[in-house]
């Protein structure tokens, strides 16, 4: 009996040692491989041959059958999607190569980018591939965390049961928009008319799927008007009610004028400017005198730039308003000097130069010294240079704009 107990003890303890040894060996193997970017990991690891099926068992031209097989064999959906996507790409590979036979031999200093027709044809084939994947996998085809990130706010107000319809509509109109812009970056008024018509069509298509309240919620998050407004109001910090009020007014203006493409005629420019002034007056009247003034200031591009710089330099928030006050004061005084017909040109230039010095003396300490001033001159402070009078030209009043040629 004692011998049996002794033997059992010895065998069991031996097995303890073996199993603990295996556990440690396994851990070490995992730790050694846990940094797959280490040079060791780049060498091919010889795993024991996988027992059972091989890829050739599943490499069939019948893709729905393949997908079903993979699902039955426990492949998770993201892997099924990857395999199906890979197989679909293979089926399109020959057509893609035929479109651009030079793709692999093209010298590295050249690109196919200037061939618009090729780009259009390639885009069409990519779209077909995506559609084939959707046909094969259904809603699973679009489930990706990366997609969700790039969709932004597109779906956060859409009821889940309507998301597929909304996604289909957006995809359709995104494709149609990209086709419109495919011939380079020309922005013609005809192109503008078609883009604005597409926007309206998309809105109508969404209205057929979403209730009026859902559509409003969608537009408040995703429309061009809402996006433009959020960017414009970054220094205004609106409440939800204020944002909704401004959105309503701005969307009426946008509905009337649409997005601007090409060079508007001077009559069109004047019409837009007059309507914009009217819009600003309406907004200020709605917000009241205090918030109206804050809106006007925050809506100014230079104010927003200054605000950004003040944040970057980690200066007190009120610095933006203080600099803005200096700018307003000096620009008003400069304007009075320029308008004064009794001033001889030399005196006018001298007085403006004094104002420019005053500007520099007042702004520099607010921005913490010369480093801040130098940064300000490139970020919101270009008005300081404009205080200095420009040299006269042969034609008198001249407006010079330069545009990059490359």
């Amino acid at each position, binding site marked *: 009996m004692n011998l049996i107990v002794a033997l059992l003890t010895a065998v069991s*303890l031996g097995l*303890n040692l073996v*199993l603990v040894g*295996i*556990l440690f060996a396994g851990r070490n193997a*995992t730790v050694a491989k846990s940094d797959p970017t280490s040079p060791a990991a*780049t060498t091919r*690891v010889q795993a024991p041959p*996988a027992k*059972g*099926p091989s*890829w*050739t*068992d599943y*490499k*069939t031209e019948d893709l729905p059958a393949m997908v079903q*097989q993979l699902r*039955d*064999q426990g*492949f998770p959906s*993201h*892997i099924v*999607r*990857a395999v199906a996507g*890979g197989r679909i*790409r293979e089926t399109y590979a020959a057509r893609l190569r035929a479109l651009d036979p030079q793709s692999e031999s093209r010298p*590295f*200093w*050249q*690109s196919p980018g200037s061939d*618009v*027709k090729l780009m259009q044809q390639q885009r069409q084939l990519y779209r077909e591939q995506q559609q084939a994947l959707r046909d094969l996998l259904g809603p699973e085809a679009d489930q990706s*965390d*990366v997609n*969700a*990130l790039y969709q932004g*706010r597109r779906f956060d107000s859409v009821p889940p049961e309507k998301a597929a319809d909304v996604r289909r509509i957006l995809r359709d109109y995104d494709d149609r928009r990209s086709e419109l812009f495919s011939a*380079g970056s*020309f922005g*013609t008024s005809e192109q503008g008319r078609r883009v604005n018509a597409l926007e309206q069509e998309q809105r109508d298509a969404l209205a057929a799927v979403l209730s009026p309240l859902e559509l409003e919620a969608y537009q408040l998050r995703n429309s061009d008007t809402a*996006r*433009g407004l959020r*960017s414009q109001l970054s220094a205004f910090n*609106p409440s939800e009610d*204020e944002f909704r009020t401004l959105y309503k007014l701005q969307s009426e203006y946008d509905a009337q*004028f649409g997005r601007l493409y090409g*060079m508007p005629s001077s009559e069109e420019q004047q019409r837009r*400017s007059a309507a914009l002034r009217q819009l600003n007056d309406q907004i200020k009247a709605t917000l009241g005198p205090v918030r109206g003034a804050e809106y006007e200031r925050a809506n100014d591009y230079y104010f927003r730039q200054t605000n*950004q710089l003040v944040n*970057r330099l980690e200066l007190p928030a009120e610095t933006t308003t203080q600099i803005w006050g200096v700018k307003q004061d000096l620009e008003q005084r400069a304007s009075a000097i320029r308008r004064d017909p009794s001033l001889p040109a030399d005196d006018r230039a001298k007085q403006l130069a004094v104002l420019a010095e005053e500007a520099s003396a007042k702004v520099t300490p607010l921005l913490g010294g010369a*480093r801040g001033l130098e940064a300000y001159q490139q970020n919101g402070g270009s008005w300081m240079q404009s205080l200095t009078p420009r040299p006269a030209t042969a*034609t008198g*009043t*001249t*407006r*010079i704009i*330069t*545009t990059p*040629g*490359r």
Partner: protein
Amino acid sequence: MKPVVLIVCTSLTANAALLGIFVARPTLAPPSVRSYFEFHSEAAPSARAPETGSSATTRPGKSPSVAAPWWQSLESPDLTTLVARLRAAGFPPAILRSIIDAEIEARFAPRIQELTRELNETPYWKPDPSLYAGNARLFESINQIYRERAQLLRGLLGQDAFAYSGVDPSAAQQRQYGNLSDAKISLVQRISDDYAEMMGQVRTAMQGVTLPEDREKLALLEREKRADLAAMLTPAELADYEMRSSPVTNRLRTPLSIMNASEAEFRTIFEIQRPYANVISPGVGVITMEMSQQRREATAKINEQIKAALGEARFAQYERATQSEFQQLHRLASAEGVSYDAMTKAFEVRGPTATASAAIMNDRNLNADDKRHALKNLAQTARTEILSTLGPTVGPAYAENARWLTHIAQGGSVSIMPDGNMSYRMSPPVNPAGAAPAR
């Protein structure tokens, strides 16, 4: 209880527990003995074969609900093991790449979801935190994830990381790295990733505002990156790699494609351009008037040297191809099958018309009305010539977008500067004081 009995009981319990752990998670065992614990994996093929009753290669039937499906024998928390198993199971490089890329993406999901949550939780009336609104921190977070994913993929797959269905991996690699060995490519990639990460951090901290010290930091990182590359590549390899990866080459690809430059022409133009790279494309921040002036001077010097090297005719083609207006015209006209000669002829209307507009504007014998009238006529003549040269589709699109033409038609004059930039003069000013700009 006797101590011996206690030891035996404890030892047997420990054995049972350890065996249970290995059966539940075979991956805890080293690969050499793992198969002893993978009872489920072995069941799959034998369960499947009788069901299909024919070669699965030609007609894969629906599998029965197997107790241990195939994926269980392939999957592993360790990606290196997963790659090895997929290779052993015969997955071709492009499918392998797809699977591993998807698996890596799944492992990065929590970080992506965290970024998405941040976007979604920002109230819709607050400034847009999205990728498209210049959010440098978010942009860098995304870039960092992509860099890490690419590093992981390359580390796991080596050259197969380039295997994208339908693309020859060696051709893609050759285009990017020339004839570098795999080991050197791996080092170049690691150096590039490391510096991209450091530069990304500098850009994130900028919050959309470039200070002089930001430019200095970025320039320093560029110099250090080059020094690191120079330490592991031969001078010839470094020169070739830089030629392939340089922003100068990127910038020149479109014009060089339009003029169909030969390798000798590319190398000549590249060598002339390279010393001026940072003046022509400063990289970050606002372009000041001083920087614009330096760019104009540099362009003049570059053009002078290229003209001397290529000759008048090829230089004219090069210069035209670098103009963004011609690039747009080329894209539009190529799509409609308009010949290169017609594009050139239409584009060349601009120069003499601009010169004539300046002459009208400076003519002291003309009053304001006469000038406006003459400029309008001049624009009309130019427009007619463009339409007749480019045809009814491309002609109107080009004419409508030629800002210089619209400006002259509205009573202004245009001057084309040596670097291709244009200056516009209008008399009197168009906008009344205080008028808000159009949106």
